[in-house]
């Protein structure tokens, strides 16, 4: 070991997380001390990790190998710009969330807290290892560790049947996904897999088109299961709400992105000789997921479920961008592929920040109001103003409004779409803009959903009498940090894009060139330009001028009075829209998608409620489960108790085999 390298730094950070888990387990008895000690330290670890990632984007990739189960199968790690970028994401997110956790988990009983420390830090560790792994075995072990740790976190309230079901669903799909990924690796690495399948060897894999497509489909299925793409998403809206808020934040913000990382690493880097149809396929799946998810997000009545569906939507958008990149690269338009990739990575980072911000916020609401059921909330902005403000930033960001970060990535994505005419294949280039308007639709609906999210729970009158109070200092500061990150990412896209440059070069061989900090001109100044800073400055200026003028000329004291409401005398909280009522038009338009059922909510106070069904479960998973049950019923017939029948089995087996010999 001559000099310290980024990889060593990253490893140190991960080890510190491991140690902190054990420390927390040891200290668990003294809740306050443990929380105040462990979580801030793991924030440090996160920052360290982010620093390592940042450093890696400039340094040359370095490799670390530790002797593994047997000599030819080592534990091997590698840190290149791509991993570096995701390490930054993970590190920063972990840092912020840990600050939040410091305050959030303090009330837990000692036993639960001990376990939580191990699982929380193990979860972080697992994600970090996934990003660093450099051979199939290491990757899969890390992948499963991540899955198991997060599983335990999901079933923290294991007394509830629901959270147990969620956990099972989650781990089952994660396990199947892992098996698929394993097969994909096996295809990619060929004979070499038997030495653990080092990624370096997979890069050189020469596959026939058929096997390349097989590997692509297998890995895309596997990672898609983790990313919650359309048919495989059912675990997501169950698991994310079941977990405690900081964990949901990490799952949505970071864990889903590890799936995206896997796709970039395997489906993009290892399979350069992509088939024509991969890109459109990915794009289609992404778009379908996004639209489906955003509709269901809008229809949810539970804050965390809404956010979970919206995570699925954002993953869908990222997939759209990646599909676009694949399409461009398949036709050798690497510059355009670079633009699409930047959009995808940028959105990944944005999503990490605003989604975790929103999850943390709803966690605060849960602690403050004791519920996240929107039909019992309302008017929180009065009681928890600071949380409400940070949440507002998050909502505006996720709704894709300028000058915040969500808009930047969507803008980049649309710009990439508008370059479609460069494609030689005319039908494709004709269809892509339609996909673009699909993206716009999902963005607009997302705005609808988020407006509902914020308006119903934070504005208006309280729908139930709950003792609400502002959350603790730690929580608020964490949310503040994340909100600032959203603003910063929104204002200075040029900086981040410059930072992404090495990653993009690694992926497609050429970058976008440096952007100024003020102007964002991905292609050329007269093609398209956007300057969030001037944008913000303009609005601020106009606002100030207007305000000053109005006050100066017509400034009269304001008077508070009851609402007018077209002169209707009575005004009760029940007269506001209910969470479902607010999206009633959508429910009406997309009736076939949500399988609406009307049913009496309570016999005591008879009133009808709407129940949403999950079409995928109804039309895909139930039949599957039924088939499996039927098969097992047939299997079980074998074991029907009569010894003579059992003897008959072995007799027939014997005769059959002997007959084969003849």
């Amino acid at each position: 070991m001559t000099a310290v390298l980024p990889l060593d730094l990253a490893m140190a950070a991960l080890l510190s997380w491991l140690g902190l888990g054990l420390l927390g387990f040891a200290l668990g008895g003294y809740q306050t001390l443990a929380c105040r000690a462990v979580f801030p330290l793991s924030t440090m670890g996160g920052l360290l990790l982010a620093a390592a990632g940042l450093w890696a984007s400039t340094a040359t990739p370095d490799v670390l190998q530790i002797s593994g189960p047997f000599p030819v199968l080592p534990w091997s790690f590698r840190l290149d710009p791509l991993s570096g970028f995701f390490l930054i994401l993970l590190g920063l997110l972990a840092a912020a969330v840990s600050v939040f956790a410091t305050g959030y988990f303090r009330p837990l009983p000692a036993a639960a807290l001990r376990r939580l420390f191990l699982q929380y830090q193990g979860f972080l560790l697992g994600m970090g290892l996934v990003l660093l792994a450099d051979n199939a075995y290491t990757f899969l072990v890390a992948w499963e560790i991540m899955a198991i740790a997060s599983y335990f976190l999901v079933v923290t309230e294991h007394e509830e049947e629901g959270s147990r079901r969620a956990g099972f669903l989650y781990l089952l799909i994660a396990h199947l996904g892992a098996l698929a990924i394993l097969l994909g690796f096996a295809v990619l690495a060929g004979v070499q897999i038997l030495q653990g399948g080092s990624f370096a060897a997979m890069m050189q894999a020469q596959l026939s088109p058929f096997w390349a497509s097989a590997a692509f489909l297998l890995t895309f299925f596997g990672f898609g299961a983790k990313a919650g793409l359309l048919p495989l998403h059912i675990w997501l809206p169950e698991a994310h709400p079941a977990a405690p808020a900081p964990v949901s934040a990490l799952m949505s913000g970071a864990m889903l992105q590890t799936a995206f990382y896997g796709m970039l690493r395997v489906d993009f880097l290892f399979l350069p000789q992509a088939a024509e149809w991969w890109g459109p396929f990915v794009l289609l799946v992404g778009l379908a997921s996004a639209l489906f998810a955003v509709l269901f997000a809008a229809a949810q009545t539970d804050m965390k479920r809404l956010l979970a569906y919206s995570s699925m939507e954002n993953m869908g958008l990222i997939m759209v961008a990646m599909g676009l990149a694949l399409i461009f690269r398949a036709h050798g338009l690497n510059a355009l592929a670079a633009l699409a990739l930047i959009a995808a990575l940028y959105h990944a980072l944005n999503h990490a920040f605003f989604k975790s911000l929103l999850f943390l916020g709803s966690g605060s609401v849960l602690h403050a109001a004791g519920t996240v059921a929107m039909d019992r909330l309302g008017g929180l902005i009065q009681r928890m103003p600071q949380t409400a403000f940070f949440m507002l930033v998050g909502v505006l960001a996720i709704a894709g409004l300028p000058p915040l970060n969500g808009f930047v990535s969507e803008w980049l994505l649309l710009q990439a779409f508008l370059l479609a005419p460069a494609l030689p294949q005319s039908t494709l280039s004709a269809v892509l803009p339609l996909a673009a308007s699909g993206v716009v639709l999902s963005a607009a609906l997302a705005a609808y959903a988020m407006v509902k999210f914020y308006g119903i729970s934070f504005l208006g009158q309280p729908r139930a009498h709950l003792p609400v109070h502002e959350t603790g200092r730690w929580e608020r500061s964490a949310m503040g940090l994340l909100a600032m990150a959203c603003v910063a990412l929104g204002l200075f896209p040029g900086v981040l894009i410059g930072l992404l440059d090495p990653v993009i070069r690694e992926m497609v061989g050429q970058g976008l060139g440096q952007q100024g900090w003020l102007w964002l001109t991905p292609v050329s100044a007269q093609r398209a330009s956007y300057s969030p800073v001037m944008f913000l400055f303009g609005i601020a200026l106009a606002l100030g001028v207007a305000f000053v003028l109005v006050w100066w000329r017509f400034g009269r004291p304001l008077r508070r009075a009851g609402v007018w409401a077209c002169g209707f005398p009575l005004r009760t909280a029940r007269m506001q829209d209910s969470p479902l009522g607010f999206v009633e038009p959508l429910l009406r338009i997309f009736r076939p998608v949500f399988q609406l059922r009307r049913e009496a909510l309570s016999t005591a106070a008879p009133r009808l409620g709407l129940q949403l069904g999950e079409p995928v479960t109804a039309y895909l998973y139930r039949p599957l489960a039924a088939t499996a049950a039927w098969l097992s019923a047939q299997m079980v017939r074998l074991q029907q108790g009569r010894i003579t029948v059992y003897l008959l089995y072995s007799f027939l087996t014997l005769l059959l085999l002997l007959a084969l010999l003849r």
Partner: protein
Amino acid sequence: MLVSAHIAVWGTSLLKLLAAMLLLIGFAMLAQRRLLTLIHLLAWQGFVLALGTALVALLTGQTELWYSAALSLGLKALLIPAVLHRLLRRLKVRGDVEAVINIPTTLLLGIVLVIFAFSLAAPISALTGTITRGMVGIALAAVLLSFLMMITRRKAISQVVGFLAMDNGLFFAATSATLGMPMIVELGVALDALIGFVILGIFFFQMRETFDSMDLSHLERIREE
């Protein structure tokens, strides 16, 4: 020691006769309805087996085959059938052996099995010496026949009889086809047979005290549903 040629010829044909008898008894068992006769047949089979072993010993002059001949005479022809007989009386197991399939069909199946066994063993017997030519086929046929019998019978005891008949078939294969396994193995096999038989005895009494019947239908409770 060397034996003169015509004894060898006579002996070989005699051995073939015994083998045929073994098979015949197997069929008889398959056809038999009454338990008591079944046990007698078993005893006869044991006797034939012992005779055959002795004959092979005489022909090949392997001394340890005499021991195994004595062993099978004692165990298979005398001791086990006698004990079974007593068990039958002690446990008051009466009446017929109701078969799962009716007898003629069973016999038909048996014939098919024998043909199958011969055709399977044909290439083997081609490369055996004069004495043991075709013995593998017969032994295989005997084993399969007793297997069939175990499948088609409903009473615990009749299954045991089938099991022992199968054992006889194996012994026959061991002695006449391979001219005797190594002694240590023979002893081990015999020991296991003995222990197994003892355990069987224990079982029967346990069954009696739990189900007070020897019918297998009591032993068909455990199943998946």
